Every structure is written in C-alpha cells, then in structure tokens.
C-alpha cells in the first residue's frame, strides 16, 4: 500500500504487510545506494503489528518506480550471492573429495609397499 500525494510522486511511504526488519533494512540499504534517492528510512509502527513503513523520497523520479528498481537490484544481488555460494560449495566439496581420494590412494599405495 502506498501513502503519497497525487501531485508529488517523488515522496511516498509504503506500508508493507507481513514484512519486518529482514526485508525493510536490506531494501533501505539498497535504496540509500541509489543516487536518485535523497532519503530512505523505515519504521515498525507497532511491534505486535506485522507491518513496516518504508519512506522513500527521491530527486524527482516516482518513488514507487525507485522502490521497484531497488527490489529488482536486491533480487539480482541475491541471485549473484546464490550462484557464487553454490559454486564455492561445489568447489570446496570437489577439492575435498579429490584430496580424500588422493589420500586414500596414498595410503593404499603404502599398503601395497607393505605387502
């Protein structure tokens, strides 16, 4: 839900239901990194209400567009995190299995020498 004015689209408060610090803080970070944003902050009006208000003020672009772009950026960031993480885990697992098999090979050859 967006609370803004019809005459000035560059300033708006977005009331997001079922969200908390998790999303609001990361989107605040992303928006603050956007040069079009002059102000971005969030608040949780009441702790027992599942709602967070995100305030966005821009240099002129419609606030909702900027917020959408921010979400898009956050998504791309997440995708990159996921692929990088997946790759790192795979690399680690393969390098470990290579190491353990080579260790095994070494110990087997040791056995061979013994016999």
């Amino acid at each position: 839900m967006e609370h803004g004015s019809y005459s000035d689209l560059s300033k708006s408060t977005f009331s997001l239901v079922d969200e908390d610090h998790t999303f609001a803080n990361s989107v605040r970070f992303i928006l603050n990194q956007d040069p079009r944003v002059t102000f971005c902050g969030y608040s949780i009006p009441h702790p027992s209400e599942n709602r967070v208000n995100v305030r966005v003020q821009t240099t002129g672009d419609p606030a909702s567009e900027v917020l959408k772009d921010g979400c898009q950026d956050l998504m791309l960031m997440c995708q990159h995190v996921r692929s990088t993480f997946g790759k790192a885990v795979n690399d680690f697992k393969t390098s470990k299995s290579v190491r353990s098999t080579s260790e095994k090979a070494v110990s087997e050859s040791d056995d061979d020498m013994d016999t």
Partner: protein
Amino acid sequence: MSSSGDESMASEIDEQEQNGGRGIPDYIMNLEDVPSTLPTHLELQKTRVFCNLDAPQHTDTIQYSGAYAALGVDNSVRLDNFYQNFKVEVKRITDEEMEFDMIGIDPAVANAFRRILIAEVPTMAIERVYIANNTSLVQDEVLSHRLGLIPIDADPKLFEYPDDAGGENNEKNTIVFKQHVRCEKGQPRLTVKSDTLKWLPNGSELIAEGTKSAADPAPKTFTTFNQKSLPKFSKDPAPYNLDVIVAKLGPGQEIELEAHAVKGIGKTHAKWSPVATAWYRMLPEVVLTKDVKDELAEELVSKCPAKVFDIEDIGRGRKKAVVKNARACTLCRECIREADEGEEGGEGEKWTDRVSLRRVKDHFIFTIESTGAIPPDVLFTEAVKILEDKCERVITELS
C-alpha cells in the same frame, strides 16, 4: 548538486550527466589535487570498526550514496561493482554445520540472510499430539512440547502449509507418528527415546471423538490418507536424531500417543527453526602500529589468550612480535589493556599506541548449525531464495 537551474550552466550539466552522474566535470576531476578515491583515513573509517579500549568507534556503515559527494567520491554500490567484489570462501562443511566467509556485502543483507535462516526457512515439526494414555511422570503438555522440539527428517519442500488446505489434514500436509512404549512391571526404569516415534504412512489410527458409533463399520480417524503411495519420499520420515530423550518410564507406566507433524516457520514457533543457530562475526584485524620487540614482544604474546601473536627472530638475538592469526582474535582487548591501569598519568607509550584492533565491516564469518533435517548449504540457498521472493512480492504489489 547538478540540479541548479542556471542557463549558462546547461552545457556543463550535460557534461556532468555523462560523467557517471557524479556531478563534476572531467577537467576538474583531472586536476592533480582532486581525490578520486577516499583519503586513507576516511577509507579506513568506512571499512573498519575500531575496537578501542573504551568503546568501538566508526561502527556504522556508510550507506548513503552521496555521503562523500563533497569529496567527489561516489559511494553508491553499482551491481557490476558488487559482482566483481563479492566472494564466498567455504571453510568447513558437514551435514550439520558449515562455516564460510562472505566478503563484499553490506551487513543489512548479511543480517537479512541470518534472520531468514532462523525464522523463515520452513521445516516439519510435530504440532498436534493426541495422547491416548500417559501415566509417566511427564505431564501431557510438557511431553507434547518435548515432542515438538524433535527435528523431523523430512523434506519440507514435499509438503504444503496446513492453511493451504483450509485446515484439513491430508497426505500433503501432515506426517503422522505413533509412539507406544510401556515399562513392564518388575523391569528397570525405561528411557523413552525419539526412535520410538514410528511413522504411520496410512495416517492416524486413533478414532476421533464423537464419531464412534456401533452402526459405522469404519470409524473415522483424525486423518484419512495413504502416504506410502506417494512416490516422492526418498526415505521414510523419522526423527533426525534417534537418541533424543523424550521421557522416562517407571515400572507399570505407559505412553501411548499419536503425533502429527506439519510444515511451519521459526517465526511461528522456534521448533520449526531449521537451525540450531546461525550467526556471523566480522573478520578481526589486528595491526601492530609500531614495532614491538624483545621483552615487550614476549609480553604481548603471553597476554593474548587466543594466540594471535607470534615471535619472529630478527637476528642478533633480538625478537619481534608479528600477527600470526588475526582470525582467532576474540576481541577481549587484553592486548591493549595496561597492566597498571589504576595508576594515573603514566608517561610514555601505551599498548593502545602499539596495537590497533579492528574489524572489517564487509567481511563476515558466517556459521550455520543445522538441526539436521536440511543440510546447511541447502539452508543458505533457501534463505537467499526467500529474500528474492520477498522482493518479487513487493514488485508485483507495486505494479
């Protein structure tokens, strides 16, 4: 900055626009005394937390894109910039635990991952317990709570939330376990462990209250389904740890119950949290700002309980302290504490002048301890996906 409306400036503003929106014409940027990167002391304040003796300093992250506009330095993180700098290094990984370094990400996002891991990645956990008989010392409600906390080894992706089916229990949202243990008279005390929870693929066997009638040949139970026919289980659902103590029975005592596990998230109740815990710490950085030699070096090495420092021989019987393993630093600050702190006005060099303790703001040592049902690397991937879903939801809501 570039929005001042002077006509004669128009062409210059155009030029500025091409200048990556930084708002400063090229000829100024090319002047010798204009910094293109932050001066070192600001860079240090931006990227490091200084852990001083009294309190940490420069703890905030500078997020605003225009924070250094006056210096002509752009503070915005462009995605391609992030793509270049972001790194993940896995340190160790088992079925239950992993540690990895996440480098080049803002704490806001790293913390979102942590919060999602703890509270929003779904698992299966026992939600309803139907007790037919419980003569043990453990009260019904305590027993039910204990059962709820047992991690269930079943892939939550194969199940739906109970709300999706309108509160009805079907094979897609409920796993039924049965537990029937009895300590016979004359036997020693019996310890009831989680391995006595047996999966009932055909659903509940207990007859629901009020539906029992002599006329009805097939009395209604709490659920009617058959999970065995579903090909999706690679292994039978069971508690992940088979030796969790549930209760103890004395001779003649008995527990007979049925436990229904459903899908849920840690936000609703901690029993659904897929992690024992998930946490991160920032990478410690220990820097010797001055050479620490001889007795002082010995003193420094012996001061540090985490064995961060080591001694290096520099010839002619002289010794020098070096930082060997900054990662192990616990930030106890013992190395910058003066031994004779009570005495006022001590002249000369202090330990704070020799050692500088810092933390790297965008380097996170992330540890995930899984409860076992889902391996930690899968958990993290799931958590990132959940954050993506959140973004997607907001985007669709806005358009």
